[in-house]
């Protein structure tokens, strides 16, 4: 049996024919295993979904309780499906995110999903799941990506708040994971004033708080009662798309910030009209990505989505077997 008999790419995503399950399928399938709740990995309309309890909760919040036919919580114990064993372990990416290790007749494959090895106050820390094949993302797989200490990036926001105490500070952050992590980092930096959040972050922030993650006092930024005077010199968190909407006019001379790994590249930040770029990422940077492959030392490294050319080149330079899967449908821009 070859590795590709246990798992191989299809148009709908990674497929395990022995268990007849897809991992993070991009289109509806009878049986899906989902690594985490980001929309490009977790879609509605499957027959059955196996995922961590938190990922299932998040999918229900986003798509409604009927997002799938049947569901099963992946707990600490492995799950057997048609003789294939599936283990879930934290990926350190967002709340509920998991890596999945498949084992069958002595052959093992770890699908990392998206992962990050920096400590993150909003989710469990990444754990190694050694296997014969390591399936990795490559979102930031270029040697120019070395993510700085996130607290230093939050420090830029704090400096700007002191320099411009009359301007509202808008921080763009995607709704699941990044927004809550940014809030937690702001709290860690000692900012205990209320933080204003866009309405589309409301449900996910409340869920994080239910899960015991302290985000401090949050106020709705989309309420009609919010005034310019009230938000001057305050922090407003919103999905970046909100910055294009007339809603922005409610704020006093806003400073536009954006928390994303892409902010490391000036042209990207400028093209978005960002004044306060904060390099905060939920993905592994180049040093952590290459370190992880070295530590896990798989026989083969499969690369799902991102900048696979550079990672392939690194595999070649370090005498490793690398294989680009060229999976379609995953948005590496949405970080």
């Amino acid at each position, binding site marked *: 049996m070859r590795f590709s008999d246990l798992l191989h790419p299809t148009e709908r995503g990674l497929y395990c024919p022995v268990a007849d399950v897809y991992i993070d399928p991009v289109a509806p399938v009878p049986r899906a295993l989902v690594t985490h709740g980001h929309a490009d990995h977790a879609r509605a309309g499957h027959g059955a979904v196996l995922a961590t309890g938190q990922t299932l909760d998040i999918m229900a919040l986003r798509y409604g309780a009927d997002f799938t036919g049947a569901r099963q919580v992946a707990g600490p114990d492995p799950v057997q499906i048609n003789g294939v064993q599936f283990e879930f372990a934290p990926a350190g990416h967002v709340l509920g995110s998991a890596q999945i290790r498949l084992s069958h007749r002595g052959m093992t494959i770890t699908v990392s999903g998206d992962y990050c090895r920096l400590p993150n106050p909003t989710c469990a820390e990444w754990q190694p799941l050694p296997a014969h094949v390591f399936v990795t993302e490559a979102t930031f797989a270029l*040697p120019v990506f070395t993510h700085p200490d996130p607290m230093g990036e939050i420090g830029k926001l704090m400096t700007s708040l002191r320099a411009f105490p009359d301007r509202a500070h808008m921080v763009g952050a995607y709704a699941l994971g990044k927004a809550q992590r940014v809030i937690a980092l702001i709290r860690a930096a000692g900012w205990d004033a209320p933080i204003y959040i866009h309405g589309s972050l409301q449900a996910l922030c409340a869920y994080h708080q239910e899960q015991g993650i302290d985000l401090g006092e949050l106020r709705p930024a989309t309420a009609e009662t919010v005034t310019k005077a009230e938000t001057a010199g305050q922090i407003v968190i919103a999905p970046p798309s909100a910055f294009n909407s007339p809603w922005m006019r409610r704020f006093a001379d806003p400073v536009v910030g954006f928390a994303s790994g892409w902010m490391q590249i000036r042209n990207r930040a*400028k093209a978005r009209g960002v004044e306060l770029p904060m390099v905060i990422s939920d993905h592994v940077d180049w040093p952590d990505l290459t370190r992880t492959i070295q530590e896990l030392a798989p026989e083969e490294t499969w690369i799902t989505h991102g900048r696979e050319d550079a990672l392939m*080149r*690194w595999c070649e330079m370090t005498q490793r077997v690398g294989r680009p899967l060229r999976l379609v449908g995953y948005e590496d821009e949405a970080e």
Partner: protein
Amino acid sequence: MKAFADLLERLAFTPARNGKIALLRDFIATRPDPERGYALAALTGELELRHVTPSLLRSLAADRVDETLFALSYDFVGDLAETMALIWPEGPGGNTPDLPDLVEELMSTGRAALPGVIAARLDQMPASERYAYLKLATGGMRVGVSARLARIAVAQYGDIPVEEIEELWHGLTPPYAELFAWTEGGEKPVSAALAPFRPVMLATPIDLDELRDLRPGDFSVEWKWDGIRVQAVVDQGVRRLYTRTGEDISAAFPDVIDAMQFDATLDGELLVRRGDQVAPFSDLQKRLTRKTTPKALLASHPAGLRIYDILIENGQDLREMDFKNRRNRLEDAAQHWPDRIDLSPILQVKDWDHLADLRADPPDAVIEGVMIKRRDSPYLAGRIRGHWYKWKRDPMLVDAVLMTAQRGHGKRSGFYSDFGFGVWDGDRLVPVGKAYFGFTDEELVELDRFVRQNTTDRFGPVRAVAPKLVLEVAFEGLNRSNRHKSGVAMRFPRISRIRRDKPVEEADRIETLRALLPPEV
């Protein structure tokens, strides 16, 4: 070095001009000499460090990073210094020297030793400083700080009129210690340089109604030529040509410099001239964009001066003298000028209505109005009311169709405030310009609403809108352009009215604009 790296970072992400000035002012206020001076010189491109080439950087990178990985990274990042700064392997660290030490090191190191010196410095620095250091070494900061902006920041910091700083600037060299001493209450530096720039006298706008309060007999009237206002200076054989903000453009106009056979400081208009004909502004622009000028362009686009005034002659300062007497001196001096340089004629005007007639029908297309100068005024620095007036020709107007809109910054956040518009070419619209002012706050809200309700496509921050709304666009002139598909480029376009009443089919056609183009000379 950290402070300079931070400044560079903040400037890059501060779109507003006043924001940039504030950042520079704060830097000047908080950093010591000579750091602030070197920083200013680096930002405005006045540090001459010419040995550090892109190929030198590439070969440095090749020693540390796999070539394929570097190429993939450069391709993604799009800027060589930034790619280098990010990809450079973290070195042993250490104390980064201050900016002045680094500048002096780069200046004094020979070509052969330079790669080793740069590599050692990169090993000491964190990524943000590596970026600033590499930008310093290669020049070209691209953070939107002109020499003029830097001078404004210095002027604001010292609470000194910017004209006084402009007057001194060319006698100063980085790191400008004596200039900063002056801004902090010290002595005003004495410029030792020959052929210095003198602050230019500027006019205030006026119209016929306001003119009626003035006595025509008190004033002298000239055409306002559509070239570039310049100051031509010859001082003991040293010759320079300055713009009205004190930029030295001598190198781009060797033909004019050669013709400057006098010892004086003259105020005039730089024009491209072919025989008796004055060429349109766009011909002059071809000369302006170049640092040096090829022979063929000198022959096809010969430049010359039309002189308005005289400030200094044979070392004698005439600026206290009144206009009438300066003019007499100027007319005497003009006897000795070569062909390329001539006198701006004085118009014989009976009264203001007569002037209005002249203005309405000027004898040359390259005239953009009239200048009205009080005959007993001295030559004063800056724009002071009551002495010189400009009565520009009425702006040209065109009815164009709104085609695209881009989001604004700062106080215009959340508004689509930069508008692209076009006119009909056959049955298709062809873009002819962009405008981001001219409208009131209420009109901005109306335009923004229109854009949101009529978006057909999005490209990053730009939206394409359905061709439904006609805008009256005012502009100061039209140039031929090879860069624009329409073949025309507007000068100072702004939106003068929203023509809700006008059906888009009745917007202007490209033929109408082409008819407004100046004749080819």
